[in-house]
């Protein structure tokens, strides 16, 4: 006769809600998109030039809202600055604040330097309020040829420095969960690595989707070489991320420790849809095959763009599902390891579905606004008219 279920009386409260799912998701997008931009500005991967500015700007837009889910989750958001004013050196969450601050500083300086020539040029050429706006953005600092050369070196340095910082940022989110030693679903050594690799995958996927959609909206065709390269990178990161995820669970199953029973039940009964169907089948296996098109040179660019875009969209779903399964899944079983609890996201409220949708929408709206203010496209982003 199997043991009857029992849940510790405080466990029915699922403390970390959908907002804590969004937090690592947005952090991953921030890091992933930045790394793509760094491949161009730091490592001079010319093929990524069409999306370099978009990647950098997207990273900034997502980073501006990366902590918003945390604020919405906090029961006392008015005390949020306690994390940086009186931080605890032993707390992963407190140290994250500093990593995030360093990243934001680095990103802001780099993006300002990248767009500085355009900003200065607009400050000189525009009139009225626009002139004032661009003058403010330029910080009233002119630019010379020598200055441009210095800027280029600084941009490269920041891009190269930014790669480890971005990796630290995304891996660190995984460490937040890894640090909870009483939870067998979270406390695995692979957790930070999985978060890091899937962050890269999500960043690349977001760029593929954004680039294709923006090009379609502008009535131009995306640069085929660029899309193809991004899709190839995405395939590699997807393969590594999914392999690590499966290795992690495979290791737990093979080890069959005392808590494997509860993990197995969690996967079979409580995460069957979000893990088995969404994360593995729809989010991993389908895009794995779709992205293979990027490796076939005879594939028509337009068809490859459609397949790549679809696959990238599915990878974004996969990474979100992975965050969901980690964050929520880790709270669905009681610390008694004898029972499970239920969690359903409410529609309304600070931690509801609508609020989550707004949080996801805000970076995109900011990106749209940024695209109207800054020259994300300099003519090299597209190859030819879509209608040619």
């Amino acid at each position: 006769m199997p043991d009857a279920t029992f849940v510790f009386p405080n466990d029915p409260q699922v403390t970390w809600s959908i907002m804590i799912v969004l937090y690592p998701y947005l952090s991953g997008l921030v890091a992933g998109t930045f790394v793509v931009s760094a491949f161009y500005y730091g490592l001079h991967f010319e093929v990524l030039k069409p999306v370099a500015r978009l990647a950098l700007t997207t990273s900034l837009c997502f980073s501006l809202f990366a902590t918003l889910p945390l604020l919405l989750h906090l029961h006392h958001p008015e005390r949020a600055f306690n994390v940086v004013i009186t931080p605890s050196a032993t707390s992963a969450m407190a140290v994250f604040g500093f990593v995030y601050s360093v990243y934001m500083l680095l990103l802001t300086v780099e993006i300002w330097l990248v767009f500085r020539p355009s900003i200065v040029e607009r400050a000189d050429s525009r009139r009225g309020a626009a002139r004032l706006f661009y003058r403010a953005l330029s910080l009233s600092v002119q630019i010379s040829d020598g200055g441009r050369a210095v800027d280029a070196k600084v941009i490269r340095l920041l891009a190269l420095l930014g790669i480890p910082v971005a990796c630290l940022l995304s891996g660190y989110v995984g460490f937040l969960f890894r640090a909870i030693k009483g939870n067998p679903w979270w406390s695995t050594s692979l957790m930070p690595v999985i978060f890091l690799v899937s962050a890269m995958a999500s960043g690349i996927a977001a760029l593929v989707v954004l680039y294709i959609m923006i090009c379609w909206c502008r009535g131009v065709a995306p640069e085929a070489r660029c899309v193809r390269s991004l899709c190839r990178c995405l395939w590699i990161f997807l393969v590594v991320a999914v392999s690590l995820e499966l290795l992690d669970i495979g290791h737990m199953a093979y080890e069959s420790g005392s808590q494997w029973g509860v993990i197995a039940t969690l996967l079979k009964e409580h995460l069957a849809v979000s893990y088995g169907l969404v994360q593995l089948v729809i989010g991993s296996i389908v895009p794995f095959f779709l992205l293979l098109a990027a490796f076939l040179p005879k594939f028509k660019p337009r068809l490859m763009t459609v397949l790549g875009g679809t696959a990238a969209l599915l990878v974004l779903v996969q990474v979100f599902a992975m965050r969901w399964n980690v964050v929520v899944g880790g709270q669905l079983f009681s610390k008694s390891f004898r029972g499970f609890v239920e969690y359903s996201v409410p529609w309304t409220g600070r931690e509801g579905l609508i609020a989550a949708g707004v949080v996801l929408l805000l970076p995109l709206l900011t990106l749209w606004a940024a695209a109207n203010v800054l020259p994300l496209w300099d003519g090299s982003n597209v190859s030819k008219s879509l209608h040619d």
Partner: protein
Amino acid sequence: MCKSTNDEGRGCTGASCLRKSDEIGSRRRFLANVCTVTLGAVSLTILPTVSADDESGYSAAGDVAKPLDARSPVFGFLVDTEKCIGAGKCLSACRVENNVPEGSHRTWVERYVHFKDGSVQVDLVPEAGYTGSELPVIDPDRVARAYFVPKLCNHCDDAPCNQVCPTHASFTSPEGFELIDAERCIGCGYCVEACPYGARFINSDTGTADKCTWCYHRVKRGQSPACVEVCPVGARLFGRLDDPESEISKRIAKIPTHVLKEHLGTHPKTRYAGITPEVI
């Protein structure tokens, strides 16, 4: 003609160049201004906090806890499952003493029933006077062994909840009590997740983390924790471990005791007598 670069910093030529000295001066002035503004902002943010802390004598340990004695006392809690009868009076006393909201628990009592077929059933003991639910009745002929296990915060020496708190809101008092500064807690829930015993919760009234304090406020007045006070059979024992003459010291010296989830290395100060490995 001056050499220039495009937005990406690669070779092209520009017509509107400033003189190099002007540019360097402009850049230096700009950097100096940025440094001044940054340092000013940091000072304005941090200095008031530091000075306020100094005035109040606040530290990570808080000013609420002064040593109760000249020497630093060491407190401990013993749960004797051989004595507990599952009366639930401790639960009601804790709720009243500490204004614990409905649906949350600073302490609870589990009933373990080991059946003859080897399976184990665990149930939650209702609070005394609470008529919402009752323990399921079990056929005594099927039972090999049964006992009650009161649970509460373990006040670990290496408390994971304390470790992960980002703001020092969770802290250890000089006497070794794991406490929460509700004025500093941001309600992130990290400590709730980190506690492997399920002892913490977010208080729905205050929006801050909450848990058993071993009734620190009562101990400071020289009283026992409320649950210890009302237990009719002495199943909960609280006292000083550094005093060999205290009742808890004598009991721990006499009977074997265990801590929960010992493999996690949290080193709990709440000890249990008479439990089996099924109790986690």
